[in-house]
Each structure stands twice: as structure tokens, then as C-alpha cells.
């Protein structure tokens, strides 16, 4: 698999975020380098929700964290409007922080246990000079109402809240700065099934209300489809398929996308359940296979998959791109 190439970049005035050839590497031990993300390119239009889906270790969270610069970027660019976030640091980077906010996977761990809920939500406003005046308190209470937390509980500490409530607080904290882009890194995977839908609906409401652009990371194919306009499927640090959410699930072209859709307990109707039986283990990101990264497990593998890395190619003239030498057509 694969994924190099800029074909999926749409360009245009409404692009709010453009990631080009993003590469992220981590050193482990003395010599080894983990190739977490290797040259991924995509863009996000204003008001759009981009979903990134893949299994653990595919680099989806690293992409999310790179956008808000929580890890070092080894190569490529992350453009937000006119700024290349990858090239910025220090005060210049910090000044753009309010625009790009993030929601974390573990809602409890993402809130400081020693601070009151109201302080946690107000933190962004305090940092950016709103002070702690009366106006601010009203704003915090309003935010709490918006996300469905009774402002009466503003003086409580985090451990008195359930996971779902804590995630609501995390959302309020991110919204306090009136961000343009909200990065959601597995925001519902730590929550109970009956609470997941509440948070997904809340995110959708907030998106409408504040005109947000969302980047939504999840390993859950159904959840990603529910929230996204456009979806990227990732495998071992590369993108294998990008496209309109409905289209991608209706006509999955990449063998790996098909395998994922066939593996879930209630397989998607567009694939055959046997396509989920991919063999072998996911290779180590320390020494990923050359050529197509999925070739070690792909049922359609051929010589060209070993020698050449497939480029992203458009499927027909629709918003659907696949990086595969042998895309599946059914």
C-alpha cells in the first residue's frame, strides 16, 4: 500500500488545513527509528469533517497530534490557512494555538485532577488574556450549559464526574477559545456504549453551532462513517484510500479497506465476509516493507507491489482516491 502522491489534494479557497508529505519519525533506543507516518497528504475544507480510520499503530493519532504540533515533524508541511505549522515554533506557534483545539481519548486523564471544572474550562481564556472577570464566568457557565453540564457543578473536581461528563468538559474547554479546527482523537472509544451517541451528537451540534472543521480519528468504522464527510483509511503510516464517506464505504477499492469492512462483527454489505481473513501480522514500523506497505498481507500481491510503491490515483472522476496497483472493482 501505499500512499504517496498529491492527487487527493483538492486545493481551492475554502481549504483550511492542508497536510503535504507529512512524515513523522520517533527514535527508539540508540539506532532504531519508528516510521510512524510516512509522507501522507490530504486537505480539509472549511466546515468539513475528515475522518481518519485504521488499526492501532497505523499512525492516525500521530497525524492528529502533528497537526497541533504535539510531536516533532520530520518532514513535509502542515498548512493552516497561510501558516506552515511545521515550520513554526515558540511564540509564533503559540499564537495560532487557539484556532486549533483538540479532544483526547481518555476524558478523565485529559483533565487535571487538582483543578475545578470551571478553572479547567476557563484555562484557555485565562492564558489568552480574558482574565477571570464576571464576563468570563458567564461565558464559562454558558459553555457548560451548551455541552450539557450543570453550571452548578463548576466547583467540583474531575473525579466526581463520569467519563461521558468528563468528555463534555473536555469539549467545553476546547470550545472556549472559539477554535476553527477541532481535532478529535478517539473521543468516544473510552466511553460506554450508551454514552457514545450522546457525545457524537454533541460534537455534531457544536460543529453546526460554532462552524467548526473537524478532524476525527477513530478505529471504529461505523463511528467514523457517522461523523465524516470524507474519510482516510491508513495502514502502517500511509494512506491507502481517501474519499467521500458514503462512496468509500459503498465502493471500497483498496484490499485493506475491504478487509477492515469485512472484519467488523456486522460486515458491511458491500464486501464479502471472507475478505476479512487477511493473514499475517502487521509488520514493525521500524522496518516497514518496501514497495506497497500492505503487500505482506495482501491477497492480490504481485511483483510490482514489491518493487514500486503505488501512487494515489483518482477513481473515475469522483472524490475517491486509492493507492493500489490492483484496486478491487466489483
Amino acid at each position, binding site marked *: 500500500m501505499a500512499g504517496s502522491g498529491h492527487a487527493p489534494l483538492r486545493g481551492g479557497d475554502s481549504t483550511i488545513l492542508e497536510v503535504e508529505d507529512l512524515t513523522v519519525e520517533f527514535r527508539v533506543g540508540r539506532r532504531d527509528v519508528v516510521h510512524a507516518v510516512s509522507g501522507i497528504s490530504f486537505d480539509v475544507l472549511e466546515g468539513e469533517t475528515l475522518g481518519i480510520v485504521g488499526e492501532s499503530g497505523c499512525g492516525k493519532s500521530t497525524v492528529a497530534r502533528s497537526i497541533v504540533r504535539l510531536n516533532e515533524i520530520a518532514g513535509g508541511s502542515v498548512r493552516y490557512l497561510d501558516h506552515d505549522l511545521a515550520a513554526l515554533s515558540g511564540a509564533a506557534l503559540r499564537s495560532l494555538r487557539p484556532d486549533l483545539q483538540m479532544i483526547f481519548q481518555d476524558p478523565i486523564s485529559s483533565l487535571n485532577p487538582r483543578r475545578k471544572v470551571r478553572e479547567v474550562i476557563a484555562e484557555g481564556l485565562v492564558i489568552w488574556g480574558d482574565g477571570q472577570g464576571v464576563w468570563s464566568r458567564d461565558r464559562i457557565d454558558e459553555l457548560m450549559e451548551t455541552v450539557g453540564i450543570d453550571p452548578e457543578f463548576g466547583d467540583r473536581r474531575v473525579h466526581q464526574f463520569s467519563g461521558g461528563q468528563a468528555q463534555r468538559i473536555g469539549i467545553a474547554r476546547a470550545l472556549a477559545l472559539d477554535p476553527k479546527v477541532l481535532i478529535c482523537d478517539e473521543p468516544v472509544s473510552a466511553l*460506554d456504549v450508551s*454514552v*457514545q*451517541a450522546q457525545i457524537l451528537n454533541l460534537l455534531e451540534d457544536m460543529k453546526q453551532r460554532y462552524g467548526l472543521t473537524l478532524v476525527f480519528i477513530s478505529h471504529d468504522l461505523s463511528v467514523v462513517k457517522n461523523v465524516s464527510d470524507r474519510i482516510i483509511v491508513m495502514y502502517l503510516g500511509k494512506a491507502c484510500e481517501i474519499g467521500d464517506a*458514503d462512496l468509500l464505504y459503498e465502493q471500497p477499492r483498496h484490499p485493506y479497506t475491504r478487509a477492515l469492512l469485512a472484519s467488523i*462483527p456486522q460486515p458491511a454489505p458491500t464486501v464479502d465476509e471472507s475478505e476479512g481473513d487477511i493473514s499475517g501480522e502487521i509488520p514493525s514500523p521500524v522496518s516497514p516493507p518496501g514497495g506497497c506497505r500492505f503487500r505482506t498481507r495482501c491477497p492480490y500481491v504481485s511483483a510490482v507491489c514489491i518493487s514500486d510503491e503505488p501512487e494515489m490515483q483518482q477513481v473515475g472522476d469522483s472524490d475517491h482516491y486509492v493507492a493500489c496497483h490492483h484496486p478491487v472493482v466489483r
Partner: protein
Amino acid sequence: MTFTLEQGEMLGIVGESGSGKSVTAKALMNLLPRTAEIDGRVRFDGEDVRALAAAGSRHFWGVRMTMVFQDPMTSLNPVKKCGEQIAETLRYHLGHGRVAAMKAATDLLEQVGVPEPGRRVNQYPHQLSGGLRQRVVIAMALACEPDLLIADEPTTAVDVTVQKRILDLLDSLRKERGMSMILITHDLGVARGRCDDVAVMYAGRIVERSSTETLFDRSRHPYTDALVRSIPRIEQPSHARLDPIPGRPPELIDPPVQCAFAPRCRYAQADCLESVPPTEGVGESHEFACHHPANTPRGREALANNVAAGVTAAGLQISYRKTR
């Protein structure tokens, strides 16, 4: 709670965190701490399991009834090789010799689909991937050819493609050996796709139990009904509005005498707040504990009343506006 399990059957126990599904499994496995008070009886093949526990029977758990946990690392000793750990079970319970046990361990790893079993027996758990580790744990559980395998969230910590392989493996092993299984999961999809019967737990009780098909197509308990509706489905178009269950699961410390789901239930009537609904249809193929079951005239009437009033007897507002 009461349930029975036939030989060779797969029973799913579905519930959210804190619903008591893992406690149930531990009670069956005699793994609860001494502070736990256990009432009632567990009969296994006609024998009273708790009498066996009292008698200090060593070769029951792990031999005839065994368990696989969510996190394989909790069941594996990090400083012992995988093969040795499986062999140890065989030597302790079945009295195998050292060499025979190691040979059997290698065979078991092969059966559960671990590639290169000859090499894996000499590896330590941390050298294996999560999926392989879970297979080693399953091999260990199967070592003594148990009659009943309890799997507590066996695939929660692994990816979907690995999950499919492990569930396929458990399925085929069950069929080959006529083994019964209890699959504990929070994932409705897994229960629906793999189990013959499903029991739904809420706040420490089984609120509904029936064959899988009936449960998902004709659910009677409003909790089951709401749970099925709240989950995003892959065949829905993107941005489909979800139908969440309001509120959150109750705490189990000093619960009031009422239906535990009443505060979150769209069907709740006055009687739901006054008494715990008894389980209807005990011993029949479909049992549920609800005063106003969904998809019945009684339930429809209750729902219609609540919708007309805009609020349930428990004070839950039914409208499109969010309540706090």
C-alpha cells in the same frame, strides 16, 4: 439472576461497564474476593459449583470450566516462556511429564493458529503481539479440554482484523469440541454476530434474555431497544442523527427500589418507580424484566402517554431539545 446454558451453546452477556457482567463471570469462576456475598446456586453438569469450591476442589476450575480475560498480560507471567506456562497447566492438572507437556503445548499453539509454534513456545509474552498473546491465553485455557469457556471481553484490546480471527477461532474450537461458551462483551455487534443466546445486563440484573435473533429484532426491554438504536450503523449514510440514551448508568451503592433503568427510560410510568419489575417468561425462550415492554401494546401505550405529556414519570423530558 438466573440463566442456563446448554452444551455446545454460546451465550453472550452484554452490558456496559459496571453492569455486573464481569462480576457474574468471576462468581462462576470462584474468583470473587472474600468480601463478596454470594447467594444462590451454580449447577454445572448437575454438580453444585459452590460446594466444589468449599471442598477445595483443585481440578475443576481450569480443567472443566475455564476463563479468558480481556488483557492477556494479566493471565500471562511476564518472566516465563509461553510454552512453559501452557505446559505447567498440563502438568499440574493432568499430571503430564515435562517432555510430553511441552510437546502438547506446541500442538495447542498450532491448533489456535499461532504461526511457527515451535519457536513461539520459547518466547516470552512481551515478544508477541497482542493478538498472538490472546491466542496463547486461549491455548492455555483449552489445554485441559474444558466443557465451558468463559471469555471476558477477549477481543476488546485488539484490532478488528485480529478480533475477527480470534472470534473465528473460538467459534471453530467450540464446534469441534462441543464446548460451551459464555462470551462477555460490551459490543452488541460481536454478540449479535457470534452468540446463540444473548443476555443483556443492566445495573447488576439480567434485564432481557432470549435467542439472539429475537433479542435484536423483537427486543422487549426498553434498554435493549434503546441500546440497539443508539449505535451508529455502517449501512446508515454519514451524518445520520443518532438516537442516544439520555443520562448515564446508575451507581450500584444503595440503589432505590425501582426499575434501575427508569430514570433513562422513555417508557417510564409511575409503577416503574415503585417496584422492581419481576422477570417475565422465566424458563421460556424470551425473558425480560419490564412493566411496559417495548413493542407491545402495554409499551406503546406508555410511550404514547409520555410523548403526549412531554415527560416521563421519572421526569425525563422527551423532546428533541437536549435535557441537562
